[in-house]
């Protein structure tokens, strides 16, 4: 019947970012050893403090065990089968974009991220990272006029070594966890943002991560510092080609806010998720943490997680400064055989600190979607407050949703509030909307965006509509 045909058409829509760019790549041999760590550092011509940082992390990693407490299942990762450094072959650092390999520019254009002068997104500065290196950063000069530094972390290590040395690893120490230690030893590229005292960043900043090589891991490292009274809104996006093997992505993101500063960090994660039978896809093991060091400072995480075969990710806030504010708004969508174990940690240390958690999990197909969150009230967190809301939406009857809230309070004068709910999209609901003239796709999209509205409202305007469409696309064929 016609309905079935519509559903069929929608199911067959491929992951549209699954192409591979045919470009010569410089890769090092597979496997991880102290020599590999030294080699990466040498290739990047790094100062000695960074080599020491990497080596220390590597030694710690060797003594650690891969964590197994998450509600995830996957074959054991062989860390000796991964390539830890891959870069498209091109002349050293480009003086201007005109010298960048046109194939790379074309790749990013295809992904909807035009980098060339004429086509740039207005009012969004972009750092484009391809495999292990940053290809280009737009609007650097314009940002520099305001004292804002926005460049790849590799460049920052050379040009702004003092700042990097002061902040790197201070929020997520090298020994924080297994994947953070691995990242600290072998991280390749990522973004560095520094907003000086009193400056409100004049444009949105954005980094776009692209994995291209099949057997390469991506280990990005991002560091954002907002000094007293400074503010910035930052967005990251990511895609990868379709391979039938799994690739490892283990990133570390550190945010620091001083007095009265604020950072808004948004993610639209669309790594390749594997096919409907769970073959291929990215293993996404990410450590993201922000530290509100200063009084009245604020860190806000917004994430829309739609990709990856496995997502292990808990963007967190350490609320150290008095009256500081942490926020976590999340939409995590899993379909087919995807597995996500994601949530946040709100660590209240300072007095009157406040945090809000809004998590929306959508599970379809045979997928499993877990929210795992910790709210901790320290002994000095007098008058601190947390509000958490965790909602799950199930599509079909083979998907799973779990909620694991952990609450620890050492401060009687702190309040923690937790609400949770579960609902299901049914074929009858879809038929109801269709029988009112609303097409299948729009009907799914209406229901999902209704469910996610509280989170989408937090995204920068340009991306809210995109996120809406992305979810609808991901869900095609999962209902009815």
């Amino acid at each position, binding site marked *: *019947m*016609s*309905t*079935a045909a*519509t559903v069929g058409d929608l199911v067959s829509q491929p992951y549209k970012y699954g192409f591979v760019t045919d470009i010569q790549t410089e890769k090092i041999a597979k496997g991880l050893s102290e020599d590999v760590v030294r080699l990466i550092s040498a290739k990047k011509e790094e100062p000695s403090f960074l080599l020491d940082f990497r080596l220390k992390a590597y030694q710690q990693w060797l003594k650690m065990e891969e964590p197994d407490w998450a509600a995830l299942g996957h074959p054991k990762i062989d860390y000796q089968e991964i390539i830890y450094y891959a870069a498209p072959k091109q002349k050293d650092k480009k003086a201007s974009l005109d010298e960048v390999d046109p194939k790379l520019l074309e790749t990013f254009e295809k992904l909807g991220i035009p980098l060339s002068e004429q086509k740039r997104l207005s009012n969004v500065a972009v750092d484009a990272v391809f495999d292990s290196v940053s290809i280009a950063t737009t609007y650097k000069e314009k940002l520099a006029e305001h004292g804002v530094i926005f460049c790849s972390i590799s460049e920052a290590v050379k040009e702004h070594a003092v700042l990097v040395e002061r902040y790197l690893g201070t929020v997520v120490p090298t020994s924080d966890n297994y994947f953070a230690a691995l990242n600290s030893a072998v991280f390749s590229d990522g973004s560095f943002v520094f907003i000086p005292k009193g400056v409100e960043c004049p444009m949105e900043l954005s980094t776009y991560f692209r994995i291209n090589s099949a057997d390469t891991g991506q280990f990005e490292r991002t560091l954002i510092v907002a000094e007293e009274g400074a503010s910035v809104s930052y967005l990251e996006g990511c895609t990868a080609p379709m391979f039938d093997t799994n690739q490892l992505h283990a990133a570390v993101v550190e945010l620091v806010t001083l007095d009265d500063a604020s950072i808004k960090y948004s993610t639209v994660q669309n790594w390749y998720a594997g096919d409907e039978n769970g073959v291929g896809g990215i293993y996404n093991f990410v450590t993201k943490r922000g530290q509100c060091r200063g009084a009245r400072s604020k860190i806000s995480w917004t994430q829309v997680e739609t990709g990856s075969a496995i997502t292990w990710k808990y963007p967190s806030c350490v609320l150290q400064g008095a009256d500081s504010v942490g926020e976590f708004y999340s939409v995590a969508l899993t379909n087919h055989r995807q597995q996500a174990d994601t949530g946040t940690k709100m660590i209240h240390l300072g007095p009157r600190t406040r945090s809000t958690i809004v998590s929306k999990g959508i599970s379809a197909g045979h997928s499993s979607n877990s929210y795992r969150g910790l709210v901790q009230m320290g002994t000095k967190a007098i008058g601190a407050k947390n509000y958490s809301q965790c909602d799950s939406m199930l599509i079909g009857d083979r998907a799973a949703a779990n909620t694991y809230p952990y609450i620890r309070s050492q401060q009687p004068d702190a309040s923690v509030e937790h609400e949770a709910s579960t*609902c299901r999209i*049914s*074929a*009858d*609901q879809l*038929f*109801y*909307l*269709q*029988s*009112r*003239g*609303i*097409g*299948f796709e*729009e009907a799914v999209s*209406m*229901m999902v965006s*209704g*469910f996610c*509205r509280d989170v989408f409202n937090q995204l920068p305007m340009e991306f809210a509509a995109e996120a809406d469409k992305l979810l609808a696309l991901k869900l095609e064929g999962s209902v*009815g």
Partner: protein
Amino acid sequence: MIRSDAPVLLEINDLCARVEDQPILKGVNLTIRSGEIHAVMGRNGSGKSTLSKVLAGHPAYTVTAGSVLYRGENLLELAPEQRARTGLFLGFQYPVEIAGVNNLEFLRVATNARRTEQGLDELDTFAFEDLVRERLGVVQMDPAFLERGLNEGFSGGEKKRNEILQMALLEPLVAILDETDSGLDIDALRIVAGGVNQLAGPDNATLLVTHYQRLLDLITPDYVHVMAAGRILRTGGKDLALELERDGYDWVDQELARLGAEPAEVG
């Protein structure tokens, strides 16, 4: 209002349908002309609810034989949303709740889908609010319901009023009302029936699917059909409904036995 020269809106010929492996409709014949009000009555399991769902295109039902012409075209080829846009309306027996989808926004999207099909301009939020406030009067509904989630936490009566409000906005050519009277108290029934009467006109048709006479006390049908075992067993005027009310459905079993048919089990 019967005029034998009025255009035929819906023509159902020997319609057979099943859900999973269970045949339910076993040769339904029914012709509906514009300006007419039809009532389909029958016991639980007679197939009358299935008939309305099949006409609206519910994906759980498969048509195995027969045809349905809607304004002379093959209705069964159209997706459910396309049936709705061209003016076929199903008022649900149990309207579902859809949390998070704003009722007003839903009504606007649905109305605009219908208007676009009719070649009319889409209504913006302001123009639509004027229209919806006017149509609320048809079912005497509190405007506060517009701001709620679609049917979310509505009582049975409020849901049915919301159905008739949708009908008032979509201005269908053929309105199929599936057990619209079920779960309504007498006041709500009067309001809903009043709404249906207001909307029925010479250019559209109404098909009431009902169990009880009480709805037909308020909406006078031109034809009454009795369904049993997946087909229409008898057709008459409004007096047939009164006869059923008085004598019950026992004669149906004798009739079926005479025809050698088995009663359908699901409806």
